[in-house]
C-alpha cells in the first residue's frame, strides 16, 4: 500500500538520514524489512513501508525483527532490519550466531545510537557489535552518505555473505540534508538452499564456521585498507591530524578546515595501515569518535601514538564547540573567544503527558495510594516518575518492570515488609518483552499487582500500530490480541484480572486498593486509547466556574497540561493551619473533555465549557 510514487532517479531532496536509508533500501531491491519502533530509528521503517514492491512489518521486538530479516536473507532475498541502540541488546542473541552462518541475500542492520540521550535510558556505542560479532560496520556522516553506504552495504554483504551494520546516530537519523537519489535495481533471491553444515548451528557445525569467520575478518580488514569509504584529506596544517567517523567528521571539518583528516566510512575492521599513513603525515593524531574510545584503544594496541578521550568527553555528542577548545589546549594556544552571551537561568520544561492522556488517571490514582513500591517500564508512562505524580520508582529496560517487581517482592528488606509491589507496563512493552516476566511471576508465585496500560499504540515513538490494536504497519486490519485472554493463558487467575476504564477514578482506585491487598499476581488492564491516535474521540471541553473555585488545587494533582493557575493565595484554617491556594482555569481550546480533573474537584467548580465562538482545537500547547 504505497502512499506515493517514489521520487524519480537523479532528483535532489531534503531527506533525514532515516528517509535516505529507506530510499536506498527500496532501490537495493530489498524484499523484507522489519523493525520495532525506537527513537531515533523509527522513521526508517515507517518510510520504507510507503514504498512499493517490498514487505515491511512492525515486529514485536528487535530480536524477532532481526530473525525475520535473517530468514529472508537465508532465502536469498535482500533483507533489512533497523533498531535503536538498546534494541541490539535484545537482538544480539541472533546476531552472535548469524555471524557464523552468514547470509545468502544481502542483510543490512541499521543501528541508531541515541548519542546525547534525547530519548533513551542509556548511551551505548554500537560500533562494539562489529568487533564482538565480527561483522563489518559502516558509519555515514550525513544523509547522502547514509543513502550511498546502505547501497554499498548490500553489495558488501553479498560479496562476503556477511551481515553489515550501518551505525547511525541521532545526528544522522534526524538531520535533514540534501540527497540525490538513484534508480531501483530489482533483486531476485536465489531461494533457500538447504545446507545444514552452514545453517544448523550445533556445536559440530558451528566449530567449523569459526575459523571461516576469522579469515573473513582478515579479508575485510584488507578491503577496508583500500576502500574508497576510507580516505585521507591531506590538509595543510600538519600540527594535528584527525582520525574520525560518522557525524564527528563534519564537526572536525567545520572546526579545523586545514587539518589532515582520515575519514573512516568502513570503520570496522579498522584499516590500521591507513591510520599509520595519516600518523606519518602529522605531528600528533587525535581520534575523534562518539562515544567510547574504541578505535583509540585499538590503535594504541597497534603501537600507533594517538590522543583521544584523554582530551575529549566520553559522554554525549561532539560538536565544533567541544572540539575547538580541546585542540587549542593541546596545542597550547589561547582559547578562541566566544561571542555568546551567558545562558539565562530559566525553569526546566520536561516533557509532559498529553492533555486527557489515559495514563493521567492511572498515575493520579497511584499517587493517592500509600505504601507502594512501583516498578516501571519504558514508554510515555515513564513520565509518571515525574511531577506531580512521582508514582514510578524504577525504569531499566523493556519489560523489566515484571522481573524487577518479582525481585522486589522476593527480596523484601525489613523496611519493605508491609509495602505492596506494583508493576506498570504499557501494551507494546508488554508484548515486546513483558509477557515472559509475567509468566515467571505467576510460575514463581509472586505477590505483585500489574497495571497493564493498554492505549493501543506504541505511544512515545509516535503511535505506531502493534498486535494490541489490530492494525498492521499500513494501517490495514490485522489480528488483535486480547490482553485479558493472554494474561489468563499465562496463568493469572481469572478473578485477579480486571479491565478498567482509567477515566473512572473511583473504580480504578477501588480496584488497585483491593488487588494490592491480595497476596497473588493480579493484572489490572486499562483500556482507553492514546489521545494522539485515530481511535481517540474528543468530547466536549470543560471550563472552571471562577465563582465556585475555592483554590484547593486538587485538580492540578491530576497533572493535565490544560490546567493553569490564575492566581495564588493563602487561607488560615479554623485549626490555625495556613494552606496554599491555587485558583485555576482550564484552557478550553485544548481540553478534550476526559473529565479526570472534575472528579477530585471538591466544590464541583468544573463544568462543560460554553463557547462564545466555535471552538478550534489546538495541537500541542495553549497560550495564556
Amino acid at each position, binding site marked *: 500500500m504505497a502512499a506515493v510514487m517514489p521520487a524519480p532517479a537523479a532528483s535532489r531532496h*531534503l531527506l533525514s538520514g532515516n528517509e535516505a536509508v529507506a530510499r536506498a533500501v527500496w532501490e537495493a531491491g530489498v524484499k523484507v524489512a522489519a523493525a520495532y519502533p525506537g527513537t531515533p530509528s523509527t522513521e526508517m521503517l515507517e518510510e520504507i513501508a510507503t514504498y512499493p514492491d517490498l514487505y515491511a512489518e512492525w515486529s514485536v521486538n528487535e530480536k524477532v525483527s532481526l530473525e525475520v530479516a535473517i530468514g529472508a536473507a537465508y532465502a536469498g532475498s535482500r533483507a533489512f532490519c533497523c533498531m535503536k541502540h538498546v534494541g541490539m541488546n535484545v537482538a544480539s542473541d541472533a546476531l552472535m550466531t548469524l555471524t557464523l552462518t552468514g547470509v545468502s541475500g544481502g542483510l543490512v542492520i541499521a543501528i541508531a545510537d541515541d548519542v546525547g540521550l534525547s530519548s533513551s535510558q542509556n548511551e551505548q556505542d554500537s560500533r562494539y557489535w562489529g568487533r564482538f560479532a565480527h561483522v563489518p560496520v559502516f558509519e555515514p556522516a550525513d544523509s547522502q552518505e547514509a543513502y550511498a553506504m546502505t547501497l554499498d552495504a548490500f553489495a558488501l554483504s553479498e560479496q562476503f555473505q556477511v551481515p553489515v551494520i550501518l551505525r547511525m546516530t541521532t545526528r544522522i537519523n534526524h*538531520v535533514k540534508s540534501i540527497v540525490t537519489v538513484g534508480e531501483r535495481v530489482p533483486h531476485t533471491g536465489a531461494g533457500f538452499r538447504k545446507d545444514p553444515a552452514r545453517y544448523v548451528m550445533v556445536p559440530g557445525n558451528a566449530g567449523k564456521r569459526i575459523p571461516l569467520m576469522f579469515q573473513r575478518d582478515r579479508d575485510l580488514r584488507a578491503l577496508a585498507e583500500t576502500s574508497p569509504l576510507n580516505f585521507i584529506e591531506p590538509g595543510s596544517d600538519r600540527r594535528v591530524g584527525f582520525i574520525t567517523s560518522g557525524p564527528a567528521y563534519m564537526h572536525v571539518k567545520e572546526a579545523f578546515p586545514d587539518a589532515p583528516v582520515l575519514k573512516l566510512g568502513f570503520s570496522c575492521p579498522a584499516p590500521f595501515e591507513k591510520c599509520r599513513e595519516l600518523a606519518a603525515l602529522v605531528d600528533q593524531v587525535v581520534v575523534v569518535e562518539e562515544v567510547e574510545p574504541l578505535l583509540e584503544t585499538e590503535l594504541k594496541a597497534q603501537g600507533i601514538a594517538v590522543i583521544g578521550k584523554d582530551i575529549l568527553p566520553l559522554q554525549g555528542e561532539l560538536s565544533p564547540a567541544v572540539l575547538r577548545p580541546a585542540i587549542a589546549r593541546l596545542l597550547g594556544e589561547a582559547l578562541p573567544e566566544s561571542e555568546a552571551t*551567558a545562558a539565562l537561568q530559566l525553569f526546566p520544561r520536561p516533557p*509532559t503527558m498529553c492533555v486527557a492522556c489515559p495514563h493521567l488517571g492511572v498515575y493520579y490514582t497511584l499517587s493517592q495510594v500509600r505504601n507502594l513500591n512501583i516498578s516501571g517500564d519504558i514508554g510515555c508512562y515513564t513520565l509518571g516518575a515525574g*511531577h506531580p505524580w512521582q508514582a514510578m520508582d524504577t525504569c531499566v529496560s523493556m519489560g523489566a518492570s515484571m522481573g524487577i517487581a518479582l525481585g522486589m517482592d522476593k527480596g523484601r528488606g525489613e523496611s519493605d515488609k508491609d509495602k505492596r509491589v506494583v508493576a506498570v507496563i504499557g501494551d507494546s512493552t508488554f508484548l515486546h518483552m513483558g509477557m515472559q516476566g509475567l509468566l515467571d511471576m505467576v510460575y514463581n508465585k509472586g505477590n505483585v499487582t500489574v497495571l497493564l496500560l493498554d492505549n493501543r499504540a506504541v505511544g512515545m515513538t509516535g503511535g505506531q500500530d502493534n498486535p494490541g490494536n489490530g492494525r498492521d504497519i499500513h494501517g490495514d486490519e490485522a489480528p488483535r490480541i486480547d490482553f485479558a485472554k493472554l494474561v489468563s493463558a499465562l496463568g493469572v487467575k481469572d478473578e485477579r484480572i480486571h479491565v478498567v476504564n482509567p477515566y473512572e477514578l473511583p473504580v480504578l482506585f477501588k480496584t488497585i486498593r483491593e488487588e494490592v491487598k491480595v497476596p497473588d499476581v493480579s493484572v489490572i488492564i486499562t483500556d482507553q486509547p492514546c489521545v494522539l491516535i485515530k481511535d481517540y474521540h474528543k468530547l466536549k471541553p470543560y471550563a472552571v466556574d471562577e465563582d465556585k473555585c475555592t483554590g484547593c488545587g486538587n485538580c492540578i494533582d491530576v497533572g493535565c497540561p490544560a490546567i493553569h493557575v490564575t492566581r495564588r493565595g493563602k487561607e488560615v484554617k479554623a485549626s490555625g493551619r495556613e494552606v496554599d491556594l491555587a485558583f485555576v482555569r482550564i484552557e478550553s481550546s485544548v481540553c478534550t473533555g476526559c473529565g479526570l480533573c472534575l472528579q477530585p474537584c471538591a466544590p464541583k467548580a468544573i463544568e462543560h465549557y460554553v463557547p462564545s465562538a466555535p471552538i478550534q482545537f489546538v495541537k500541542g500547547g495553549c*497560550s495564556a
Partner: protein
Amino acid sequence: MSATTNILVVGIGGQGVMTATEILAEAAIALGHDAKKTEVAGMAQRGGVVSSHLRFGERVLSPQITPGSADVLLGFESAEAMRWQHMLKKGGITLMNTARLVPPVVELGLFDYPDDPLAEIRKTGNKVVAFDATTIAQELGDIRLGNTVMLGAIADHLPFGAEVLLDCVLKRFARKGEKLVELNRRAFEAGRAAVGAAEAALA
C-alpha cells in the same frame, strides 16, 4: 551575513517549530544553497523544549549551530526565546512571539515563569523584536495560522527575498484550496508587517 547562515527556531513540542524550520530549509534549497536542519527535541511530542537548527550556504558541514553564532533566533514562545539567547552571535537578532506557555512544573509551584521574558532578553544587550503571533492568527480567524505568521516574521531577516519563503509556505497549502492559500498569504504578510512595525517603533 557570514558564508553560512545560522537560523535557530525554538519553542515547545507540538507548536510546529520543526515544520517551520523545514519550510525555511526548502526556501534555502530552492535558491541553490546547501542546507542542513537538525533538532534537539527530547521526546518533543510531549510539550518539552524544542530547538531546531537550520544552517545554509555554499557548503554546510556540521549541522549544529555553535553557541554564539546564530544570526537569527525565531522564538515561538517567550520563555523559550529567552532560554536560547546564548546561541546568538554578537549583532544577531531575536524575533519572538509574546505567547506564554506555562508548563505543569510552574503550575505546581516548583518553578517560576519569568514576569517579563522580553525585558530579560533586552538586558543581555541582544537585539529583540516581539510581536503577538497568536493574537494575529486569531484575528485572521484560525489560531493554526500562527506558524505562517512566524514565518512571515522572519521573512525580512533572511539573506534572500521574502517572496521565496512565501512561495514555499503557500506550496504546502496549494492542494488544500485557494481559500487556505489566501489565508496563509495574509498571515505571512501580517507577520512581516508586525515585525516591521515593531522595528520601526524601536528605531
